[in-house]
């Protein structure tokens, strides 16, 4: 038997080798390198490295543009989470009923198609839709007697425009997740409540929502992590402008590292992003654990 066991162990390592080697080479080692780089100053021409301790972080934290980007990113997250998760839940609740086959096919196509298509491609489309003078959104608003809205060119509207497009694009993903969760709510609970004369609103708030609460927390976490990395849509729609009104943390990072050539501060700001993501995930686990304990108690 010993030889059989050895064979199994050897096969185990061999089967893992390709995937793990790729993972090491293109994710884990770069991750460690990024951590190292955030404490260093690197000359791009001579490839020499100076260890500078926390200087990069001091620089990033004292850079008002970083805080602008950080603030913008959190503004984006707060609104896009409300829009995506909130509307996603509403549409999922609406879809969670007997719907004739062809109609369901159409609904799934309509609500899910934007999720599948690249953020870059839909950003090109929306850039034209948002155009102030020639865009079709303003055309229809004019028909209604509303003056032109400077969707992408005013600093107060630009981020809202990015968020509207983001909700249109990503809502369908949360619809699918919520729908799967809602299918898991025990039917006998709902039927028993209905027999007792509970109104739909009561069934919704007392049975359905509490039952899928952990999924709601998951979706909020997921949307938050995605929102922390917002880049493609802003890059194409506004390129961070007007001014710095829509500049996000990832845009700041790419700008520092690749446009200004300061790799150390770029890596430092990326690391701040990673720590923030870790914090958000820890919060999710904390909240879900708290809900479980309370349910048991």
């Amino acid at each position, binding site marked *: 038997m010993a030889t059989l066991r050895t064979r199994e162990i050897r096969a185990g390592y061999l089967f893992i080798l390709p995937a793990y080697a790729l993972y090491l080479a293109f*994710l884990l080692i770069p991750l460690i390198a990024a951590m190292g780089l955030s404490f260093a100053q690197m000359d791009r021409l001579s490839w020499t490295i100076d260890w500078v301790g926390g200087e990069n972080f001091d620089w990033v934290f004292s850079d008002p543009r970083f805080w602008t980007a950080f603030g913008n990113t959190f503004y984006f997250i707060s609104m896009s989470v409300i829009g995506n998760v909130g509307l996603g839940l509403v549409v999922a609740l*609406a879809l969670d*009923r007997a719907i004739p086959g062809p*109609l369901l096919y159409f*609904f799934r196509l*309509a*609500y899910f198609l934007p999720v599948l298509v690249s953020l870059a491609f839909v950003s090109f489309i*929306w850039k034209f839709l948002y155009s102030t003078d020639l865009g079709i959104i303003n055309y229809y608003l004019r028909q209604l007697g509303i003056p032109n809205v400077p969707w992408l060119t005013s600093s107060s509207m630009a981020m809202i425009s990015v968020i509207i497009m983001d909700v249109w694009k990503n809502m369908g993903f949360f619809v699918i997740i919520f729908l799967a969760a809602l299918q898991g709510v025990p039917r006998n609970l709902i039927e028993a409540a209905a027999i007792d004369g509970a109104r739909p609103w009561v069934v919704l708030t007392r049975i359905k929502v509490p039952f899928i609460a952990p999924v709601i927390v998951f979706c909020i976490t997921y949307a938050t992590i995605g929102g922390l990395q917002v880049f*493609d849509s802003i890059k194409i729609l506004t390129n961070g402008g007007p001014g710095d009104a829509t500049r996000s943390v990832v845009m700041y990072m790419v700008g520092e590292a690749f446009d200004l050539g300061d790799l150390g501060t770029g890596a430092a700001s990326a690391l701040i992003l990673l720590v923030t993501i870790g914090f958000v995930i820890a919060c999710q686990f904390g909240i879900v654990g708290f809900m479980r304990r309370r349910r048991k108690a």
Partner: protein
Amino acid sequence: MTMMTHPHADTLTARFYRATRVIHWRNWTVMVLLGIGAVFMLLPFMWTFSTSLRPISEAYRLPPSFLPDRLDFSSYARLEDGPIPFLTMYWNSFVVAAVTTVVVIFTSAMAAFAFSRLRFPGSNVLFASMLVGLMVPPALVLIPLFFGMAAVGLIDTLWSLILPALANPLAVLMMREFMRSQPREYEESAFVDGASYWTIFWRISLPQMGPPIAALSIIVFTTSWNNFLLPLVFVRSFEAMTLPVGILSLFGSYGAEELSVILAAVTLSILPLLVVFLIAQRFIVESIASTGVKK
């Protein structure tokens, strides 16, 4: 990223698709509202498609059209004549996505086989260490990867777009979940008959995973096809450019006045995804619902 397995994923099909014959009036109201919402969701795509079929001079004519009011393919022809080699980019996008998909599916299936079927010391630690990668934003590893690529002279080649995408812990994780839900009987009897692990993997485990492999392939292919940040930073020349960044440079060289040419490029870029989605819609939706993950 974080993951969550849904315990009722397998019953999803049955409930999702069952339609009763009697429909309550309240349900009709909800369906009408859903229908209006659905049309609004589709309008941007319909506008893109029908405007790409207008001649350039009429692209901006208002009111806009949402259904093609004419079939003028001159914008599509201009794509090939223009200063930007659109077909080359299309081919690049396809090559990058196809190579990435084949390698990722193959290596992650192998790893999943080991993680779900074989016992060996350290397997839990190795698997847990891969989960760390789910948390890492792609932007974070961009800087070291850029250096690595520059050091071996791969910047501005298709390899600089393919290689970083080959590390895909999410695919390993999903594949492992799929494989764990498969019955082991055939594999065990083949093992008793003296088949090697490779034979078992290649002849039994892989073939019975057909549907989930197809679904995962679509997800990996789409992710690669849609990637924007990596080519934006790693590629400068048209010869190695892929579609999302290519269209951004179309903006630069054509300007907004040639709206229908740009929209023709966008339409052609979306088309493969749309076709795949129309064929495998139910499939994709369920595999995403069952794992709760997307990348």
